[in-house]
């Protein structure tokens, strides 16, 4: 694909991500921290987020699947997921985590299971969006262009 249209596609895609609430200003902060001395910073932190989140989602499934649910443990995991999603700007994931914590407090197993499903959905959605974003950036750079700066 020609450089100009790749860059336009990147701009449209990124704008939509913010407009639809997948990402918030915290993601922009990450981008602003990236520079020549940390050229892969965003990718690095987002990758840490992916690894951490998938581990937490597995733990959550396991914990909620027990005969007697340890809600303190569930809450601790959700708290961590909420924290890391907030840190990278994964707004929708963060928002589901907030609702999830309320159900934990109420010791509402059904509510928790619903939230788990939702948070998993939102996580995989934002993961796929971010992977597309990184792919576009790579393509732009490979075509000899520079990634548009949207802030």
């Amino acid at each position, binding site marked *: 694909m020609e450089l100009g249209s790749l860059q336009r596609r990147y701009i449209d895609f990124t704008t939509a991500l913010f407009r639809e609430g997948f990402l918030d200003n915290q993601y922009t902060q990450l981008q602003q921290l990236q520079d020549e001395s940390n050229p892969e910073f965003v990718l*690095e932190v987002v990758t840490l987020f992916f*690894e951490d989140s998938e581990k937490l989602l597995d733990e959550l499934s396991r914990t909620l699947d027990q005969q007697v649910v340890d809600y303190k443990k569930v809450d601790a995991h959700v708290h961590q997921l909420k924290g890391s999603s907030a840190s990278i700007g994964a707004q929708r994931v963060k928002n589901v985590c907030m609702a999830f914590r309320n159900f934990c407090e109420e010791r509402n197993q059904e509510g928790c299971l619903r939230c788990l499903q939702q948070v998993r959905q939102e996580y995989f959605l934002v993961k796929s969006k971010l992977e597309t974003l990184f792919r576009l950036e790579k393509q732009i750079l490979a075509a000899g262009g520079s990634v548009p700066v949207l802030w």
Partner: protein
Amino acid sequence: MEEVEKREEGRNDGMLEGGVEVRVLVVDDSPVDRRMVEVLLKKSGAMFQVTSVDSAKRAMEVLGLSEDKTKSPVVDDQKVDIILTDYCMPEMTGYDLLKAVKEQSCQKPIPVIVMSSENEPQRINRCRAIGAEDFIIKPLQTNDVLRLRSYARTGLPPPPPLSSSKAGTKRKMTIELMAESGGGGSERRRPRLTGLAMA
């Protein structure tokens, strides 16, 4: 899995401040947040030497503190100038770590700044009550780390305490004075007076 990461951060313009590196110990169980804080410290323009650990227990080991409070550290030489710790951590919390550091019997306990994603006045007060120098709401911003250098320096007056009645505010009030005399943020470029020759 416990890990200690040491990164040398800082640029040559640290020479303007007498080349004194500020040794920061970052304590956070989240790998995402640890990395964020490391880079924020590096980009703040100040000379920070960052060590990060993933648990309070590991922090105690790095600091040479024992669980037994009757035993003072063998050497009074502090290995760290500031501790930046997360509040919520499994097993041993940031609060527990703060308490252990402040209860040290040596002359001057290390400044401790607590980080948390929860803006809870009760939590903030608890920490201040036992001597935390400051309390920062996560996610951390560049402004937040700019203040850190001032806590490590001797002779500088401490910034005014945060009013805990500010329930709605996420950000701490910016200590403009401290930022001016402390590290140079990305907004303010200091002139390169030393004129270091680059080969």
